């Protein structure tokens, strides 16, 4: 613990490169967690859960880098991989939908067999490389490169912009080409010939899109405010398009018939509804429910 605290408090780097107690403790905590995260990522059914387990593994790796005195690499791992890359993954997964889980149907034939072969080959490669590094390579340690001006990030920057500048620039070019290519592929068709808002307005005014104004709402100029009451135009005739087809198809059909048969409603500013019953024949106190509803 004291070693861990010393690490947090910027103890001078141990030049021998031996594994300290704090580093060992950190490794034995982070290692199993990272491994468990990796396994759970493969096993998890839900895609978002898989992504989260992968995030856990990446965080553990970042913490291990930091514990091994490579803080720049560790934090960049956290910022770039967990922060940006996995966030993009999550974004796409959310777009796909919440309940979409992996289907177990094999789409490509013999896919599992090939995947198993490749996996085994990869495992063999990893194990042999690891075994070689454990037995034949003497660890140089990161301590010598941390002591220059600027510390750890300073020496990384120096290496990146002097010895490896071509690799660095080529990687940058590759990434930019990939980004531009993705944008060209994704946007080339959608953005072509898309009218601007101004063009749409002018086209509407020119009469290229039917009528220039929006459809009249129901009940405009009429005294009733039911959605089934058609709007009245300023000259008193009814506006058939003011009644929605969905809401009151009967009224609309009737209107259409009326308009077609030529019996236009007379300009009548007292009109409150299309369907006007005969004036009541009884006493004036009796108000028919129709009229009550139409008001």
């Amino acid at each position, binding site marked *: 613990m004291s070693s861990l605290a010393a690490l947090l408090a910027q103890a001078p780097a141990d030049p021998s490169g031996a594994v300290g107690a704090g580093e060992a403790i950190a490794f034995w905590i982070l290692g199993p967690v990272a491994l468990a995260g990796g396994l759970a990522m493969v096993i998890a059914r839900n895609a978002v859960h898989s992504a989260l387990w992968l995030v856990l593994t990446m965080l553990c790796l970042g913490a291990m880098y930091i514990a091994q005195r490579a803080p720049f690499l560790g934090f960049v791992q956290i910022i770039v991989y967990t922060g940006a890359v996995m966030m993009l993954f999550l974004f796409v997964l*959310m777009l796909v939908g919440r309940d979409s889980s992996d289907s177990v149907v094999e789409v490509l034939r013999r896919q599992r067999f090939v995947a198993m072969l490749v996996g085994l080959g990869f495992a063999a490669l990893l194990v042999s490389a690891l075994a070689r590094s454990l037995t034949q390579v003497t660890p140089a340690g990161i301590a010598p490169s941390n002591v220059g001006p600027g510390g750890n990030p300073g020496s990384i920057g120096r290496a990146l912009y002097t010895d490896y500048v071509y690799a660095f620039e080529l990687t940058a070019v590759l990434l930019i080409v990939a980004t531009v290519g993705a944008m060209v592929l994704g946007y080339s068709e959608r953005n072509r010939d898309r009218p601007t808002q101004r063009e749409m307005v002018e086209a509407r005014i020119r009469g290229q899109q039917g009528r*220039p104004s929006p459809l009249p709402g129901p009940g405009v100029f009429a005294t009733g405010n039911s959605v089934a009451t058609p709007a009245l135009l300023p000259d008193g005739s009814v506006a058939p398009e003011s009644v929605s087809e969905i809401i009151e198809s009967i009224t609309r059909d009737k209107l259409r018939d009326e308009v077609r048969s030529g019996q236009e409603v007379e300009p009548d500013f007292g009109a409150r509804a299309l369907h006007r019953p005969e004036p009541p024949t009884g006493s004036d106190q009796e108000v028919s429910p129709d009229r009550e509803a139409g008001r």
Partner: protein
Amino acid sequence: MREMLADDPFWLIALKVQFVFTFLMITTLLMIWFERRVVGRMQHRPGPNRVGPFGILQSLADGLKLAFKEDIRPVLADKWVYILAPMVSAIPAFVAFSVVPMGGPVTIFGEQTLLQITDLDVGVLVVLAASSIGIYGVVLAGWSSGSPYPLLGGMRSAAQMISYEIALGLSIVAVILYAGSLSTLDIVLAQGEQWWFAFLLFPSFAVFCVSMVGETNRAPFDLPEAESELVGGFHTEYSSLKFALFFLAEYVNIVTVSAMATTLFLGGWQPPWPLSQVEMFNTGWWTFLWFLSKTVVVLFVFVWLRGTLPRMRYDQFMRLGWKVLVPISLVWIVLVSGARVLRNAEVTTPQILVVGGVLLGALVLLAVLLPDRSAPEEVEGVATAGSDYPLPPLDLTVPPVPRRRSALGGDGQRRPVEVTAGSPDTADTGPDTASNKERDNGTS
């Protein structure tokens, strides 16, 4: 100066951690109260003024009430992620504050130290990393709630975070170039030797200010929780302490980014100019006062923005991030690096002037030689376009009003305007007559 931190005993580190935690909790309570009071004042109303003097305990009372509310988990929620999200949101917010230098060299119980938990070579990156982890809380909360509004809020937050983290990171680059270090302590010390970076690197400061508001989901960039569109956004389904954690995380994040703005651009714990000439103000606990007052000023700006600006539309917000902030930052970084290279190369002023003049001349020549973009031809005569509608002119200039007769009669009395069109009184049959009769019957 780092050596003072390096030999901190364990009890002192624990004390500092405890202090930062308490500081952030109390600042959150005070910030909520401060925000409500200031916004209230901006809107000509008193704000909370019942609990405690000036209502200062209002947020404490609210917090207690929140803790005793029922904790609800929706049936469709993804159980573990739903529980995990508030914690993921709150914990990194506190972690980020560990690298903020709150004060210069002080003596605590006989131990010479700095008011800062730790100082890393990569201190600025710690803050960026913590904020990028913290957004996971928001995104996961939106996803796991199992209802559409939070999902929309979470997705907005993911896109927002990716966009504005880039602008934030780019705005820091110029500061790092000038300070020569990623360590927060070195950045503060560098601002003691030269100007504050807010003046020296003003474009960086402006980009940082805009993107820090975007990064903390605050008005006018509070799209993930836009209450007029998304109910509560990502925290719609949360209640009780889980909701309180989100609330806490938001305010701690605000305090953290304000402290970072202070550290990176406003001189950290260095005193402002006339006071910095006095030796006493540069040392000891005074430095904590400068840090605190600058942070409060930035916090006030947060409140001010909220009281002033309406929420942006989502596409406007994205356009601002990608098409304004990021390009400005990139161009500015190139300029700053160019200036640094020129200074290192020891070129003389005439050389700079000659090369700059040639470049400028080439640019002007290029601008003159490039053909103008052909302007779209104006279409004339679309006034009526074959329809009977009386159309307003396309350029929307109001035609002059024709001169009318005076509304005043000869006797100087104003006459009521006669309604000539379609008066219903003349109709004998029809519903209006009936309604008039009804009305008469009702009143008599």
